[in-house]
């Protein structure tokens, strides 16, 4: 018959154990939440491309991103994309950052000029813009600036009537707003030039084959598959935030070590007499240390599970509080948090392990 010492010791003071688990969970949440928020922003940034249905995106030479990016393809080159072998459909678009205003309220949008026949991102309500005085906006703008369907907004000094809505493109600072391409080209001095061409491949032609073919056939363009383009767009957020994320992982690690160490050390100190008794009864030092490590491990695993639950809760809660906030929980980030948790366990166990290793079995007989 065995005595579950690890569990019993942890449950002697439930409040302390629970507070410890919560502390570890919050420290790991610092690591998880930041990554999930940034990943959520990345997903929103690629929302248009990911849902456009395009297999290949053709841009100006050297351009592999859309947000905060300039790309100009001359009208003749854009028109010749459709004639490349393997192209089923080619949709030219113009992409322009602008301030969308409704009264005194303003929001940054990327106006996307599309042809009336274009069938890109699906709408969540209403219809597509049919002329240069109509625009589709993200649902989030309803709450942010009151730009719901039927309202009038201004951008680039021009009035637009909102005729439809899209969902899930509002990121931390911007969203997309599809409108008529020809009018947008005129408003921005682009004339017939376009920003990008979204290309669908014929059946049996792979996206990468088609991208290579377009790249070879047309001068001054870069053709990327949708996956490559999205990856490139996401990398921008990643590249800009690497240092901040690393710092946050480091701080999360430090706080995790401190909280775990505090709980484990506190528990060990209050049970030193028990350890001495166990040693006097014949428990060998390695086994006693195993008990301490078991306690630390149990705390960290429970903290890790709670952190996952908390980040899941944030994933549900934050978009309801602010439509521009979205979380995306990725396996890689969970593995990073787990690695941090494992490192936390290893370092935090050091203090109580040293204390238990020094316990004199005879001390139990002293008052």
């Amino acid at each position: 018959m065995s005595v579950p010492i690890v569990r019993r010791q942890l449950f002697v003071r439930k409040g302390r154990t629970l507070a410890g688990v919560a502390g570890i969970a919050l420290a790991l949440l610092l690591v998880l939440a930041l990554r999930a928020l940034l990943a959520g922003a990345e997903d929103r940034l690629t929302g248009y491309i990911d849902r456009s249905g395009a297999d290949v995106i053709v841009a100006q030479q050297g351009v592999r991103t859309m947000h905060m990016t300039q790309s100009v393809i001359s009208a003749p080159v854009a028109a010749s994309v459709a004639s490349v072998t393997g192209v089923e459909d080619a949709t030219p678009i113009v992409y322009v950052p602008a301030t969308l205003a409704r009264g005194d309220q303003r929001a940054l949008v990327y106006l996307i000029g599309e042809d009336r026949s274009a069938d890109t991102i699906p709408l969540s309500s209403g219809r597509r813009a049919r002329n240069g005085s109509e625009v589709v906006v993200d649902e989030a703008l309803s709450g942010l600036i009151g730009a719901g369907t039927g309202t009038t907004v201004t951008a680039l000094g021009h009035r637009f009537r909102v005729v439809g809505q899209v969902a899930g493109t509002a990121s931390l600072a911007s969203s997309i707003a599809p409108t008529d391409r020809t009018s947008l080209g005129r408003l921005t001095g682009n004339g017939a030039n376009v920003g990008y061409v979204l290309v669908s491949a014929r059946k049996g032609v792979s996206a990468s084959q088609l991208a290579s073919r377009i790249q070879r056939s047309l001068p001054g363009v870069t053709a990327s598959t949708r996956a490559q383009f999205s990856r490139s767009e996401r990398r921008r957020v990643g590249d800009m935030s690497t240092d901040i994320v690393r710092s946050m992982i480091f701080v999360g690690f430090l706080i995790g070590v401190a909280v775990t160490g505090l709980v484990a050390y506190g528990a060990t100190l209050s049970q030193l007499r028990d350890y001495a008794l166990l040693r006097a009864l014949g428990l060998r030092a390695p086994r006693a240390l195993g008990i301490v490590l078991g306690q630390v491990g149990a705390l960290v695993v429970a903290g890790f599970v709670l952190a996952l639950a908390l980040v899941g809760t944030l994933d549900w809660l934050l978009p309801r509080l602010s439509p521009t906030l979205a979380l995306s929980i990725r396996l890689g980030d969970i593995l990073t948090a787990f690695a941090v948790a494992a490192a936390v366990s290893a370092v935090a166990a050091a203090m109580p392990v040293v204390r238990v290793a020094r316990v004199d079995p005879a001390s139990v007989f002293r008052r």
Partner: protein
Amino acid sequence: VRGTVPVARRQLLAEPAKLTVSVLAIAASVALVLLLTGLRQGIGAQVTLYLDRQPSVLVGQAGAQNFMAQASVLPETLGQRLEQLPGVASATPISQEFAMLTLHGRRVLPLLVGSDPGKAGGPWSMAAGRRPIARNEIVLDRVLAEEHGLGVGSVVTYRGTRLRVVGLSRGTTAWMTPLAFATRSTLNALDRRPRTAGFFLVRPDKGVDASDLASRIEGTVPGVSALTRTEAAANDRKLFTGAFNGILLAMVVIAFAVAVLVIGLTVYTSTSERGREYATLKAIGLGRSALLWLAAGQAGALALAGALVGTVLAFAGVWAAAALAPKYLVNVTGTSVLGMAAAALLMALLAAFLPARYLARLDPAAAFRR
């Protein structure tokens, strides 16, 4: 003999190792909050680096409310018309755009400003080389160039065009929006928009108020938006720091909760471990409120010590960022520090709840049990 026994202090100092770990954990949370809010402030300051050094009125395409992240295309001939308006000393055309560069495998997004050689709007201080005078020449921020091993004579490729680095500018460093400079003709060629400008930098005549002039321009010239430099800068600041608010708030709430938990955990542990001593104090007549003050005192001391050490750590972080990664500007202000001190007291109040509840329920008779 009358005297006082500093019970709270003695209990806190009884285990220095535990106290140190507790203070460090609270300090880490405090430093994190200060550094994140400082970074947000720094972003705000860096975003307006360019505008802060330009004339006081900015004219863009109608609807333009920002200088950055805003399309604005005007005919370059508009400059002559602007200069004929009363109160306008000069109107200098510039073009600007974010230039997505890939420098040794990492994405960098400088704000590329195109100005006319010999006119306003270019780099104001050179660390090396010269200002751009010909097409396909570029001046990079010194810190950005150093970070990526670039110097005068290097070549960067942007949108399929090779741009030769002819100079490095000083005072143009920023984490999100470092500055780069080229000629306006370079930008116009890249954008295939000849004879256009993005904005006009308008210098008012002596004694002419900037906001009056902006209103006059907007009222006289159709199809333009005229903003004072202050307005445009405020809008840009709001746009960039606003994007950071949600993330910052989430991190601050988590850090605050961590600090509250650590304080609560430390005071609760030390209180519950000395339950017998507290029961004795209760048995010999120490009142309930005095006992609660003991817990609150310990929590307050821990919170203040954590806030103090955290502030020191934050300033060390500011110094380290300036020395090791100068592109990050972290502005830890007195207001933030005061705010953290107030937050520390709030943390202490919240954290004292658990031990206070334990003490309130403690039976004085427990002192006499074995």
